[in-house]
C-alpha cells in the first residue's frame, strides 16, 4: 500500500515533518478540507477509499486530524492535480459552501500555511486537555446550582445560540445525537448503531455532555440515568433550563417509579430500558422527525 494513513497525533507528526525534514518533497501537492464542517461527515474509511481510487498507485499520505479535518499530500507522479482532486471531493461529498473546502494548497508555496494549521490544531488539543483537567472544578455542584438559577435574561442568549446552531443544519438529512453513557461497552453499542443514522457524539459524564451540548446543540440526547458524579436527572434538568424544548430520552437498567416521576418533571420524551432494542430506538427517532417535521433519515 502506497498510501500512508496517519490518524493518531496527526497534527504533531505533520508539524514535525515540516520542521525537521520533509519526506513530502517540493514535487508534492497538498489539499486540506474541513470535514468537520460537512453536513454528511464521511468516515475515515470512506475518505481513504475515495483517495485510493485516484491515488492508489502514488505515494501519498492522509492525515486525519483530531477534529475530523483532513490533509492529503501526494507526490506529483500521477496526473492528478489539486484541481482534479478538489473537483472529485466536491462532487463526492456535496460541498455546497466554499469554506468547507477553503484551503487549497500548492504544497511548495504554502508549507508555512500548513504548519500554521498544525500549530492551531495542536493548540486546540492542549486547550481541550486543560479543560478536561478542570472539569471537576468547572462543574461543581455549586455551578450546577447556578446554572439552574439562571434568570430569563441570561437564558435567552444561550437558547438563541442553540436555536441558531440547529437552524444552520436544518436541511441536513442527518440529525445530531448525543449519547451520554458512562459504560464504554454500552455506549459503543448505541453509538455503533446510531452512526449509520446520525451525526453522533458521546460523553461519559454529565460535564462533558454539557460541553458537547452547548457546542453542537444535538437534536436528540440519549441520557443514562446512573452516571458517575452528576446523574442523568440532574443533567436533564439543566439542559431543560438552558434549552427550549430539548428532546431527551432517558436510558435505564432499572424499573423504578421514582425515575419515571423525575423524568416527567424534566419533560423527557421517552425511556429506553437495557438491553437496547433497535426497533424502540428507531421509533424514538421517527417520533422526533414527525414532531419536528424534518425529513426522515431513511
Amino acid at each position, binding site marked *: 500500500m502506497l498510501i500512508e494513513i496517519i490518524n493518531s497525533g496527526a497534527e504533531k507528526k505533520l508539524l514535525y515533518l515540516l520542521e525537521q525534514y520533509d519526506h513530502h518533497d517540493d514535487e508534492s501537492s497538498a489539499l486540506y478540507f474541513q470535514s468537520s464542517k460537512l453536513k454528511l461527515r464521511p468516515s475515515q474509511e470512506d475518505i481513504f477509499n475515495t483517495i485510493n481510487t485516484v491515488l492508489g498507485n502514488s505515494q501519498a499520505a492522509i492525515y486525519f486530524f483530531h477534529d475530523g479535518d483532513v490533509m492529503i499530500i501526494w507526490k506529483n507522479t500521477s496526473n492528478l492535480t489539486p484541481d482534479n482532486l478538489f473537483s472529485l471531493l466536491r462532487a463526492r461529498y456535496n460541498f455546497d459552501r466554499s469554506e468547507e473546502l477553503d484551503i487549497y494548497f500548492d504544497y511548495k508555496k504554502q508549507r508555512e500555511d500548513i504548519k500554521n494549521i498544525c500549530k492551531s490544531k495542536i493548540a486546540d488539543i492542549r486547550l481541550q486537555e486543560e479543560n478536561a483537567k478542570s472539569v471537576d472544578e468547572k462543574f461543581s455542584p455549586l455551578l450546577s446550582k447556578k446554572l439552574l438559577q439562571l434568570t430569563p435574561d441570561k437564558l435567552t442568549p444561550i437558547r438563541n445560540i442553540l436555536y441558531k446552531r440547529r437552524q444552520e443544519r436544518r436541511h441536513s438529512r442527518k440529525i445530531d445525537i448525543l449519547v451520554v453513557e458512562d*459504560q464504554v*461497552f*454500552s455506549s*459503543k*453499542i448505541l453509538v*455503533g*448503531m446510531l452512526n449509520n443514522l446520525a451525526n453522533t457524539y458521546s460523553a461519559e459524564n454529565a460535564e462533558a455532555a454539557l460541553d458537547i451540548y452547548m457546542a453542537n446543540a444535538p437534536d436528540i440526547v440519549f441520557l443514562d440515568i*446512573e452516571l458517575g458524579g452528576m446523574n442523568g436527572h440532574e443533567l436533564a434538568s439543566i439542559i431543560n433550563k438552558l434549552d427550549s424544548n430539548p428532546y431527551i430520552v432517558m436510558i435505564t437498567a*432499572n424499573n423504578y417509579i421514582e425515575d419515571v416521576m423525575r423524568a416527567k418533571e424534566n419533560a423527557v420524551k421517552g425511556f429506553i430500558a437495557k438491553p*437496547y432494542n433497535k426497533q424502540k430506538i428507531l421509533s424514538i427517532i421517527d417520533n422526533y422527525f414527525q414532531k419536528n417535521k424534518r425529513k426522515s433519515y431513511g
Partner: protein
Amino acid sequence: MAEPVDLTSLHEMIDGDLELEKELFREFFSSFGSGIAELQAGNSDDIGSEKWRTGVHSLKGIALNLGAYKLGELCKKGQDNYMADFSIRSGILKEIMAEYEIVKEFLEGRL
C-alpha cells in the same frame, strides 16, 4: 441447554458487523473484569455500600446489553441486596464471577 449469551439483540444493534462485535467482546472483558475487581476491593462489611450498589448496577447494564441475561439477573440480585451483610454479598459476588467465566468462555470461542 441454553447458551449463556443471547446475541440476537446485539447483532440487530450492530447490524451484523463482525469487527465491531469482536471489539465489543474485548471491551466487555475489560469493563466487566475491572468491574468485578472493583467489587472485590470494595466489598467490605460496611452495610449498605453505595459503591457496591453502583458497581453491580453498572455490571448489570453491561451484561444485559450483551445479552448475558443470567449474568444480568445475578447482578440485579447483587443490586437488590446492596443493604445485605458482607457474607451474603460475597456469596452473590462468587455467583457473578462463576457466571462471568462461563460467558467469557462462550465469547472467547467466537473471537
